[in-house]
């Protein structure tokens, strides 16, 4: 696809276009404190909503008494399941999630009742006065307990599409991927390595809590101002719960304080609307951090068994793998996570003989769904650990071994899909390896006294260098971009061009959820490049325009960006038609030359200026709405996993350098270098920010982050005191090397960038810790006790 061309006659292209590190349009508001996040919204006469949640992981509700709560002064409504007006269940794919618990609670923290009151503390105290009588039920918490004979079935009478092909009703979905002949390959293998790996439950830990404001409208509908990842998917789920047609539920995106997958499912959306419609008053709901840990799905914890076989000369012959993901109490996006884990289970390597199965369980653990990396993260931790062990057995350098087996453009995935765009896996590894190493013993100073801030343990002053060992590790990963397996993954964009006070102004309207990633910046850049204008107005994202799909799967720059691009090009053609009609008689180039919009003017490709854009437009307003789709995908065969299931693949590699205090088990990550191919860096500063941010989330999974769930299904650490995410002291220097190898199928050749760096960061850090300690380390996060054996 052609990128923007700059005519020779203009010294400067349009400023702030594609390829530049244009500043964020919301940057100034965000640094002055004026940017309105969902939790900042306020309305006259507004009430506060709170949620009463289950204290048990699995229990029958015997009775509910809300009288004391309702009698509390300042309380306007108390709702339980019995008060729901219409549909009582919702879900992204499978409608198995109760709006409020229906006789049974299936996980710790499941919503049971709602309260609206005039002060949040009044609402909380009233919620505490609701009397729910529970009868506790047996809990299933892993594969063994979920599929044991006589195990409690979480969702009896399932009628979803996956129910018919799973071996047990507590299995949400199972996807095999089978290719070649593993048994024959195993017989030929000189080296076989097998291992069991485990990934803990990671939380998105976006900083802006779940929140929104629902305002009842005079027409019986409701206006919802909300922090979400996908307005139209929310709408599709909320409207049936309210018993309203979709046009009576008008949604507007408010400021979103991060997402990372955790806002793909509904949290308080339907609850706030129900309270607003019941009370006739605007209702605001804001979770605190404690509730946020219960209020959204998490990354699936996983148990993975891998067996790899290789020839003596270092060629991978086969991979056999079994990946068991814990989906928790409700389906959320578990089926799609299973599809990703299965299809990407082998990693970015060429392997002819593959036998993989991935499945997700229903258990009484917290529901799990989307988080950055989406099924590929868990697999990457395991296959990269296997690659290091194979290299060691073969006596090969771990990077060289990976490079020998690295896929490249034209490679065939285990699903049979041909990778028909650049796949520079070996080059990414080469780049991170070629970087100069950070200096050793960084705590040593000229004065002699160590700078403890550069040591494991930091200002805790636990070592001055004794017992500290350095390690280096490498990893590389593969992530799909966009929604897969035949999903109709489109975006809508409306673009208007007009002259305002003699200047051309473009207006871009989409429903894309800006969650921090910088999609708004990119949309303005695309409009500037395609329409040659400087001024671009971005309309608030809302449901008055068609769906922009989800801000997930690294897809927004590709798909909604693609929609903006094509809408702009349609506008441009109308400008040229208008110009030919109005001015064509004055210059033959209008009819015969290739025309461009550049710097507010209509020019020929050679750079001759034909007219000011504003003069062509006069009072005309050109507005175009376009839906845009990437190439279609197809479902994976349920038995073999074969199929062109993915749109695009994205690759990143990391080198981690760590210092480990081997006596105390404390890890200091010294440097975490990343190389990634982004196809085209539409905004280089934003791309680097995505890579560094994803890298640090991977570091968090490697050494810190886990939601601890006890065997009885209770969440033990729902706070930032006990669930640790990396601080600036835990975070190393992150040098980034960005490759731009165009994918000819994608707008501007770009490649979705947000997720790939989250994959390889974790195994690289753990590989470095293994190198420093000699320990096997088959579970993340790695904790001090895993290193000291205490």
């Amino acid at each position, binding site marked *: 696809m052609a990128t923007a061309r700059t005519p020779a006659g203009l010294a400067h292209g349009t400023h702030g276009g594609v390829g530049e*590190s244009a*500043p*964020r*349009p*919301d*940057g*100034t*508001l*965000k*640094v*002055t*404190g*004026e*940017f309105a*996040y969902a*939790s*900042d919204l*306020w309305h006259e006469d507004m009430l506060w909503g709170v949620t009463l949640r289950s204290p048990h992981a699995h229990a029958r509700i015997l009775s509910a008494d809300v009288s004391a709560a309702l009698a509390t002064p300042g309380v306007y409504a108390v709702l339980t399941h019995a008060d729901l007006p219409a549909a009582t269940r919702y879900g992204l794919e499978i409608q198995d999630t109760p709006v409020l618990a229906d006789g049974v609670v299936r996980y710790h923290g499941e919503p049971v009742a709602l309260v609206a009151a005039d*002060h949040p*503390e009044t609402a909380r105290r009233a919620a505490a006065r609701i009397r729910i009588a529970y009868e506790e039920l047996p809990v299933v918490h892993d594969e063994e307990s979920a599929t044991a004979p006589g195990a409690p079935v979480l969702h009896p009478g399932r009628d979803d599409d996956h129910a018919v092909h799973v071996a047990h009703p507590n299995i949400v979905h199972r996807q095999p991927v089978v290719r070649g002949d593993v048994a024959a390959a195993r017989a030929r293998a000189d080296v076989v390595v097998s291992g069991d790996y485990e990934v803990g439950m990671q939380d998105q830990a*976006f*900083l*802006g*809590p779940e929140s929104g404001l629902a305002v009842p409208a005079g027409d019986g509908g409701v206006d919802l101002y909300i922090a979400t990842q996908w307005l139209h998917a929310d709408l599709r789920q909320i409207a049936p719960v309210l018993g309203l047609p979709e046009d009576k539920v008008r949604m507007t995106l408010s*400021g*979103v*304080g*991060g*997402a*990372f997958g955790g806002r793909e499912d509904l949290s308080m959306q339907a609850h706030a609307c129900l309270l607003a419609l019941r009370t006739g008053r605007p209702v605001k709901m804001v979770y*605190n*951090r*404690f509730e946020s840990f219960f209020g959204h799905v998490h990354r699936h914890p996983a148990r993975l068994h891998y067996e790899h076989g290789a020839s003596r000369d270092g060629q991978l012959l086969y991979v056999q793998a079994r990946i068991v993901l814990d989906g928790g109490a409700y389906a959320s996006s578990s089926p799609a996570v299973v599809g990703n884990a299965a299809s990407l289970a082998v990693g970015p390597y060429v392997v002819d003989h593959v036998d993989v199965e991935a499945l997700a369980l229903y258990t009484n653990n917290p529901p799990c769904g989307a988080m950055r990396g989406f099924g590929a993260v868990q697999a990457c931790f395991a296959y990269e650990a296997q690659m290091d062990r194979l290299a060691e057995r073969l006596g090969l350098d771990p990077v060289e071994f990976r490079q020998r087996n690295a896929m490249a453009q034209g490679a065939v995935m285990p699903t049979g899909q041909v990778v028909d765009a650049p796949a520079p896996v070996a080059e990414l590894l080469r780049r991170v390896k070629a970087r100069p190493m950070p200096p050793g013993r960084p705590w040593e100073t000229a004065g002699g006294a160590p*700078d403890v*801030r*550069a040591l494991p343990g930091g*200002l805790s002053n636990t070592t001055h260098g004794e017992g500290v060992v350095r390690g280096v590790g490498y990893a590389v990963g593969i992530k799909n971009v966009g929604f897969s397996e035949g999903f109709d993954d489109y975006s809508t964009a409306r673009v208007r061009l007009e002259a305002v006070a003699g200047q051309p102004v473009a207006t871009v309207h989409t429903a894309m959820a800006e969650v*921090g*990633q*910088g999609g708004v910046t990119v949309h303005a850049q695309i409009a500037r490049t395609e329409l040659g204008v400087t001024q671009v107005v971005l309309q608030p994202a809302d449901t008055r325009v068609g769906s922009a799909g989800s801000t997930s799967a690294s897809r927004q720059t590709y798909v909604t960006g693609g929609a903006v691009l094509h809408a702009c090009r349609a506008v441009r053609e109308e400008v040229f038609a208008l110009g030919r009609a109005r001015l064509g008689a004055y210059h033959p180039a209008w009819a015969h030359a290739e025309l461009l919009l550049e710097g507010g003017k209509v020019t020929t490709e050679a750079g001759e200026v034909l007219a000011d854009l504003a003069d062509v437009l006069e009072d005309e307003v050109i507005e175009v709405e376009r839906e845009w789709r990437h190439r279609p995908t197809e479902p994976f065969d349920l038995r073999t996993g074969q199929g062109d299931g993915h749109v695009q693949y994205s690759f990143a590699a990391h080198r981690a350098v760590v210092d480990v205090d081997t006596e105390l088990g404390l890890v200091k990550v010294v440097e975490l270098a990343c190389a990634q191919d982004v196809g085209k860096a539409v905004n280089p*500063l*934003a791309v*680097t*920010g995505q890579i*560094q*941010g*994803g*890298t*640090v*989330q991977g570091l968090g999974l490697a050494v810190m982050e886990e939601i601890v769930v006890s065997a009885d299904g209770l969440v033990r650490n729902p*706070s*930032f*005191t006990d669930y640790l*995410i990396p*601080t*600036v*002291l835990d*975070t190393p*220097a*992150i040098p980034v090397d960005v490759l731009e190898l165009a994918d000819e199928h994608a707008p501007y050749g770009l490649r979705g960038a947000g997720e790939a760096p989250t994959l390889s960061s974790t195994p690289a850090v753990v590989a470095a810790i293994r190198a420093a300690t000699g320990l096997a380390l088959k579970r993340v996060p790695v904790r001090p006790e895993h290193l000291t054996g205490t």
Partner: protein
Amino acid sequence: MRVNFTVNGRPQQADDVWEGESLLYVLRERLGLPGSKNACEQGECGSCTVRLDGLPVCACLVAAGQAEGREVVTVEGLAEHARRRAAGDGTTARAPAGTSLDEARRWTPAPGGPGAQALSPVQQAFVDAGAVQCGFCTPGLLVAADELIERNPEPSDADIREALSGNLCRCTGYETILDAVRLAAARAGEAG
């Protein structure tokens, strides 16, 4: 109860404050200053960092009553705070409240959006360095970083990391935040 204190140079009075309310709640919900953020409300994330008589504190951990008679600076007042500091007014907190007639007459709308010319050096550096993504941590980081540069105009990387270690960011991986603080300090050094 009634609480009287000064916010960003202006005397403020909050009525009907429940004794359990935090300074953060009063700022956000009673005084219309939602810039200080509510990411954890337990003193772990730093997104509600404000200056209380000059010291950076988590507003969520300060009972509103504890602010009685004291001076608070929030992100909304950071640009003005920095401007007065640059003007050599050592008594920034005691400066007269509001906008003077002279100042009002000199005011012109800033090109490039609301407040574009009014940013403090730290605020501008965060925009320029790409240190803002979702921006929810940004107000607290700005207040903390501004305070760091105020007391240590040439901070080392280790100094910056130590000063900002109470502020969580989930988007950036902190690299661009370090860039922004280095940039702000360097610009202040050039200007000074």
